[in-house]
């Protein structure tokens, strides 16, 4: 099992948000997490990536059997965990290319690999930017500063493509995207699907799942997975809403 989460409890500011979440994602699969606002979707993504302030009070989370929760955020990244942020941060003064190269080389050093040489890095960046229809000149600008919502999401996918992670968490990647941007972003994500990778796609709406087709769909309500099923579950939710699951969770 690539990602294995068992009976996970986590609190923010002393308030318990995740209340016994159990989830397994095997390599090669895409799992969707759907749920109402406040269910704990973003908390799950931050707990898995090790953000300060998200305190795990019980349970386990492992990646390929290794205890994720014992690792620092950058150590998790070096092992291939990538979070596409719902609200990507603006990094004033750091050109996108510099930021990505610094991150990539930090990961490579942590894995005991050689740093990527500048020409190879630029070639890779040009290639991936073209595929995502990102103007290469934009990569010379400070990362995300003054970028539109859609541009920021595309930059997340570009970073994902360049860092080549093994376990991808997409947190509300469709928010703020128009249909054209949604298609480009989804194509970028789908290009990364493969037998050695797994993805967790967190979304409030079914729309994104028309483009990134999940193998499994889980309903997160009240801090737990309350239902799981095939892709058809997403359509049911779209038609019936989350209400009955929220009642069940309460």
């Amino acid at each position: 099992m690539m990602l294995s989460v068992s009976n996970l409890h986590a609190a923010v500011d002393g308030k318990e948000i995740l209340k016994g979440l159990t989830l397994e994602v095997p390599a090669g699969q895409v799992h969707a997490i759907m749920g109402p606002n406040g269910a704990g979707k973003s908390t799950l993504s931050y707990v898995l990536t090790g953000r300060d302030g998200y305190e795990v009070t019980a349970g386990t989370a492992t990646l390929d059997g290794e205890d994720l929760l014992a690792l620092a955020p950058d150590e998790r990244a070096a092992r291939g965990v990538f979070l596409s942020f719902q609200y990507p941060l603006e990094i004033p003064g750091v050109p996108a290319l510099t930021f990505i190269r610094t991150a990539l080389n930090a990961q490579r050093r942590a894995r005991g690999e050689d740093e990527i040489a500048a020409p190879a890095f630029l070639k890779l960046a040009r290639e991936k930017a073209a595929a995502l229809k990102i103007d290469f000149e934009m990569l010379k600008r400070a990362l995300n500063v003054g970028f539109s919502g859609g541009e920021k999401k595309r930059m997340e996918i570009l970073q994902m493509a360049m860092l080549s992670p093994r376990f991808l968490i997409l947190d509300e990647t469709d928010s703020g995207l128009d249909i054209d941007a949604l298609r480009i972003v989804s194509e970028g994500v789908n290009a990364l699907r493969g037998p050695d990778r797994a993805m967790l796609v967190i979304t409030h709406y079914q729309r994104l799942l028309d483009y990134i087709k999940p193998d499994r769909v889980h309903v997160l309500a009240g801090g737990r997975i309350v239902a799981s099923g095939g892709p058809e579950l997403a359509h049911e939710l779209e038609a019936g809403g989350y209400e009955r699951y929220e009642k069940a969770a309460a």
Partner: protein
Amino acid sequence: MSVTAAIRDRDVTELPSKRDEDWRWTDLRGLIRILPGPSPAFEGDLAVGPFDELVTRVVAIVNGAGEAKIDVPAGETAWVALRIVSRGDGAHAARVTINVAAGARLQLFETYEGEGGYLSQTTLAIALAEGASVERLVLAADSPGGVTVSQAEVSLAAKSDFAQTVATSGGRRQRIETRVSHPGGHASLRLDGVYLLADKAHADLTTVVTHDGLDGVTEQLTKGVVRDQARGVFQGRIVVAEGADGTDAKMGHHALILSERAEVDAKPELEIYADDVACAHGNTVGALDEDALFYARQRGMPEAQARALLTEAFVGQVIDRIDQDEAREIVRAWAADRLRA
């Protein structure tokens, strides 16, 4: 009341003190109980300065000895390194007069280089004639025991262009003051600063700009990073006199405080007596953005590296504004050395 008079008369009561509103955060009277005697003349060779290889002329003033004059004739271009060097524990004062004639251009690389527990005063008078252009870079590397005051009076003429960047690591007490009389007339002014302070360093960047005529431009951006028990002071005042319409003035001061015992005192002031002006100022003092830090770490950067990257980027926005390429890279390397230490 001046440091020059205090040194001349060996009288501590003439030092500026916290009772002077302008010096309340840089109280020399409270610091210095006994005025040191005059610095001896420096014997020996000076090491090569950081900008010597870039320039056509080096003016070195060691322990205040000598009065320097730098003239750039009309239409000419000069690259000059001005080295203010302090050695030992004495007191000394120097004067520097700089005249840049009509249409002339001066690239000035000014360094403060200190070793010891000295008291040093430097007074500069910088005059630009019509259409003259000056880029003044000040790199202040005082010793942790040194007290330095540098006061520059800059007078602009119509269509002149004065750009300044002060980069400093502070001293026991250090004040770098720039007063600009701005006649408008499409003259443009850039007054920038970077202070990177550690241990018990103190740096005070004080500027006063007075716009007296129509259509003047002032751009000001100062950034600081302080840690340990260091203290940064920024006092920026822009005065737009009655009738100085069409003035466009922007002032920004932003500081990062990286430890609980570090301190930043800031006083940005805009005094506007004209009606038709565009003036803006922003002032922020805070910690590194934790969200940005997590973002960088999530992408794989270890915490120390992520902090260094974000901090260098923070001050890099000031350094990027230095026009001259080599100077900009020297300052960038200086900042990287200090921030990664």
